[in-house]
């Protein structure tokens, strides 16, 4: 410690530590409670001694309540939705962003404006029409179709972030590829895509967190209980397991801890994605 560390410095450090505890403790608490029996959760939620450990909570969350669905199924649905959405939005987003950067300033500005407007559109204004379209096309309860919809919803963010990157893309590389006889699309696939791995990972992470946690559309468009994703499944758990809090906490653990691990591994790319203007909610 520096000698002139003031009272203010100590107060600042105390504040920082307090907020850190408030940020991290809930995650630890979720894990702790996921291993406790229901009686212990009720009588002594914070205690760590003299506890009857109950790892069976995880089996319940994984298999779901009797006659219901559990995480085994939700996880598959979430995986389908996320993979479809990310592959779709990253590929089409990079493609559109790159070629927009080759367009004349007027065309480029018009396109970027269009995507900017799309990002300001609240989901609640789109919800009803998506429902009626899915209903007409018999796509309700299809995780695949929801994945495609998410890809379209994530497209504006992908385009806006990657467009900034491609504007600074060295023209020499493009020209060299043209001299080698590559067409513009093949140049994109062979030269541009491999060189944009960094920003693409950042964009994929930012959108991945959104898609993985999206609830409002999923709750409306995934009508069949067997088609639900993890966030919607968690809300179902809340009703079905109302007397079985341990199973709910096991579900919360399964829903959040893998994300925490991904975040801790990729936290630089996530921070970069946020800094580039990507936002997920």
């Amino acid at each position: 410690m520096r000698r002139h560390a003031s009272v203010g410095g100590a107060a600042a450090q105390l504040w920082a530590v307090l907020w850190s505890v408030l940020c991290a403790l809930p995650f630890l608490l979720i894990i702790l409670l996921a291993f406790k029996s229901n009686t212990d959760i009720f009588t002594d939620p914070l205690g760590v001694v003299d506890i009857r450990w109950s790892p069976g909570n995880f089996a319940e969350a994984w298999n779901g309540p009797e006659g219901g669905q559990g995480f085994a199924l939700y996880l598959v649905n979430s995986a389908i939705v996320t993979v479809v959405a990310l592959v779709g939005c990253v590929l089409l987003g990079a493609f559109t962003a790159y070629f927009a950067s080759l367009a004349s300033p007027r065309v480029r500005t018009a396109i970027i404006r269009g995507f900017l407007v799309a990002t300001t559109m609240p989901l609640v204004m789109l919800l009803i029409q998506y429902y009626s379209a899915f209903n007409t096309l018999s796509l309700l309860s299809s995780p695949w179709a929801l994945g495609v919809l998410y890809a379209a919803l994530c497209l504006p963010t992908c385009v806006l972030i990657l467009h900034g990157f491609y504007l600074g893309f060295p023209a020499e590389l493009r020209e060299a590829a043209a001299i080698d006889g590559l067409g513009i699309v093949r140049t994109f696939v062979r030269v541009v895509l491999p060189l944009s791995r960094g920003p693409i990972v950042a964009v994929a992470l930012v959108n991945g967190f959104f898609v993985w946690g999206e609830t409002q559309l999923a709750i409306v468009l995934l009508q069949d209980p067997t088609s639900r994703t993890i966030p919607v499944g968690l809300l179902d758990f809340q009703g079905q397991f109302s007397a079985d809090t341990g199973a709910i906490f096991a579900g919360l653990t399964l829903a959040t801890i893998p994300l925490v691990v991904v975040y801790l591994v990729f936290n630089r790319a996530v921070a970069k994605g946020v800094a580039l203007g990507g936002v997920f909610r």
Partner: protein
Amino acid sequence: MSAPRAVSASGLAVEATSRARGRPGPLQRRTSRAVLVTLLPGIVALVLFFGVPIVELVRTSLSSWTGIGDEEFIGLRNFQQVLGDTAVLKALLNSVLLGTGSAIGICVLATILGALVSAGIRGSRVYRIVWFLPGIAPPSAVAVFWSLSVQPHSGAVNAVLGALGLGDTHAWLAQASTALYVVIAVAIWQGAGFAFLVILGAMEEVPVSAYEAAAIDGASPLRRFFSITLPLIRPVLSMVVLLEAIWAFNGFTLVWGMTKGGPGDATAILPVQVYKDAFQFGNFGPAAAIAVVGGVILLAFGFVGQWLGSRKAADE
């Protein structure tokens, strides 16, 4: 809950720099036909998934529709009904309270946190990572966790308060007078990390020389924060306030997961009202009208916010 989006200021900045750069060359001045063709899929997606639904929404808001069969045009009757409905007005008020309350809370907290880290507090590399943790958890998990945690007796928050001798029987979510504040607190908990990262980014752009000059002049750290940092980050700060307010205004998941709009209609916000009207009661016309009203309010809010932001910038 709303779609991921790019912070609009950065998009505009991209436009500005590309224009200023104004690279000449045959590729740039006119868009080749091949490039135009490659842009088509993106444009089609934009029109199909954003343009058409908005037009259709307005049409539905002017119709009577139960979810099946044909829509019947009834003019502005839905709007008349919706704007005279006390439940809708209550939801509007709740949305505004949730939006402003959490936006202000998030930004005050995030500014303090950003100031601590940019002042080089010890351990700031760890803090940067930890403070963003709540932001990555799925909102529905956050809602379920906190609603369980504020239960009387068994909830962790009550257990802590009980251990401190402050009583462990607080049933905040069951009381109409307190439920909305719990939702606002949780929204702040989850949203602060993102705002912190953005505000910290702006603080790190402030030139060191400005602080050095102030330090030579004998300005205290607190004084430096208020007379240098805060004015210089104001454009970013006002943008973050605006975005957070809009997101919270639309934040369906937290409210639905914690209270389903209750007790009574104490925490019902516009998206909850839309969801109930359309998908529980089958009144799609009025629901669409509520969505249109909410959208118009947000649009007006956004324009006023941007106008205030740009006017302030012009003043300086």
